[in-house]
């Protein structure tokens, strides 16, 4: 039994989603190989070879893989699975993994188990359904199990301690179906939402994107990432990559501070596994208070600057 993990594309080092996906692979048992794709990924492959528990790193280094286009990545993975006799293919539940893995599964004529949160046995997994309100245990009858892995549900494996062999994988080709045009990536000094220890999120109660600097000041005091509810993103306060929730990012930080967020079920689906939840909302009936460990009924425009100042004082 050997698992092939498709690494999250990276310009430098090993990404956290790759390490948590490897955490799920470790639960399966058996050998684990990691596929590193991209252009000029030699250093990333070497870093991946240091990750604990990795038996082999396969690198697919080609211009047509530079942007992780599913049309080019999927046939490559399928070729490796068929040649290498892999029993499992795992990818992180990132927008990259969610885009590529189902294409791989369909080409292999197997089902995919999306967003697994637990490994019961090599063919049986748990996954959330109904916006996390139920946990389904599903068994796959297919010869190859393809799954995407929810990062918050598994421990990241250690990034060091391994010494895997690095091999070049052949079979990369341009399918000629799609072409990368451009990318607009949000630049931020703050930690990434999906790996931040603390997150400060704003909702409709923020009233405008112009008020988000209030949250940014608080976030900087805490070394936190800034997130948002769907309502705030839909209203154009902040870009789409801020969205925490069922159809956005799933997070589980040590501390989640929800500001001006009412607590719609779709939002809770993305953050209710956080260790400690704080809610600041002027509506004491807001559903967010039902799951918050600490609730403060207050006007956020007063409470947030006060909180920032208080942390500065104490800190």
């Amino acid at each position, binding site marked *: 039994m050997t698992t092939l993990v498709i690494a999250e594309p990276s310009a430098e080092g090993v990404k956290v989603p790759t390490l948590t996906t490897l955490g799920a692979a470790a639960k399966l048992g058996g050998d684990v190989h990691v596929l590193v794709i991209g252009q000029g990924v030699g250093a990333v492959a070497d870093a991946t070879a240091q990750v604990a528990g990795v038996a082999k790193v396969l690198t697919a280094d080609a211009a047509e893989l530079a942007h992780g286009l599913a049309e080019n990545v999927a046939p490559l993975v399928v070729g490796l699975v068929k040649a290498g006799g892999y029993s499992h293919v795992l990818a992180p539940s990132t927008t990259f993994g969610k885009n*590529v893995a189902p294409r791989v599964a369909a080409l292999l004529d197997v089902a995919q188990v999306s967003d697994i949160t637990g490994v019961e046995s090599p063919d049986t997994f748990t996954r959330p359904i109904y916006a996390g309100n*139920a946990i389904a245990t599903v068994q796959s009858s297919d010869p190859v199990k393809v799954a995407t892995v929810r990062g918050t549900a598994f421990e990241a494996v250690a990034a060091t301690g391994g010494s895997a062999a690095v091999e070049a994988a052949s079979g990369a080709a341009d399918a000629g179906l799609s*072409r990368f045009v451009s*990318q607009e990536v949000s630049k931020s000094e703050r930690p990434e939402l999906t790996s931040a220890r603390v997150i400060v999120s704003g909702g409709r109660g923020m009233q405008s994107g112009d008020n988000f600097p209030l949250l940014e000041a608080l976030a900087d005091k805490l070394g936190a990432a800034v997130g948002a509810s769907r309502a705030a993103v839909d209203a154009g306060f902040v870009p*789409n990559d801020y969205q925490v929730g*069922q159809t956005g990012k799933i997070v589980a930080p040590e501390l989640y501070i929800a500001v001006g967020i009412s607590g719609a079920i779709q939002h809770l689906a993305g953050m209710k596994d956080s260790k400690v939840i704080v809610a600041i909302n002027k509506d004491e009936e807001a559903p967010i208070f039902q799951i918050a460990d600490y609730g403060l009924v207050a006007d956020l425009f007063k409470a947030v600057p006060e909180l920032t100042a208080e942390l500065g004082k104490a800190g």
Partner: protein
Amino acid sequence: MRNWAILVQTDVETQSLGVAKALKALAEKEQPGLVILGKQAIDDDANQTGQMLAALLGWAQGTFASKVVPAEGTVAVTREIDGGLETVDLKLPAVVTTDLRLNEPRYASLPNIMKAKKKPLETVDAASLGVDLTPRLKTLKVAEPPKRAGGVKVGSVQELVAKLKTEARVI
């Protein structure tokens, strides 16, 4: 231009791969230039069918689209990705799956619902498509996740900071 609806009927439990196969059979018959699907179902959150359909047809896929601009023989799709936005150019025919910011949903008004009753609806028995819809995944159990107990209300920012420090120990 022909406006009509097709209903594919089956009593089999539908799973993403089977649905993708049924849609592939329909696409081969109807020859659309573009197939648009939602990115994920609100119940099982699988987020697979569009990608699988594109794979089976050998077409390009523009998933999580927030902007779709068709051109001659191609379509430019702006995708919502983890870090922001990405634009790709896809050869047509192609599959697009939609994200939340693509457009303002057009809800059906009552007069339009009445009018829709008169539109042609073609019902297709899934078995007639000649595809294998057999479920590959078996749900063994469905359980309720551990419940989060609600906590306490604090009276002030000072109290909140104190509790986060001494009780929760997260700052």
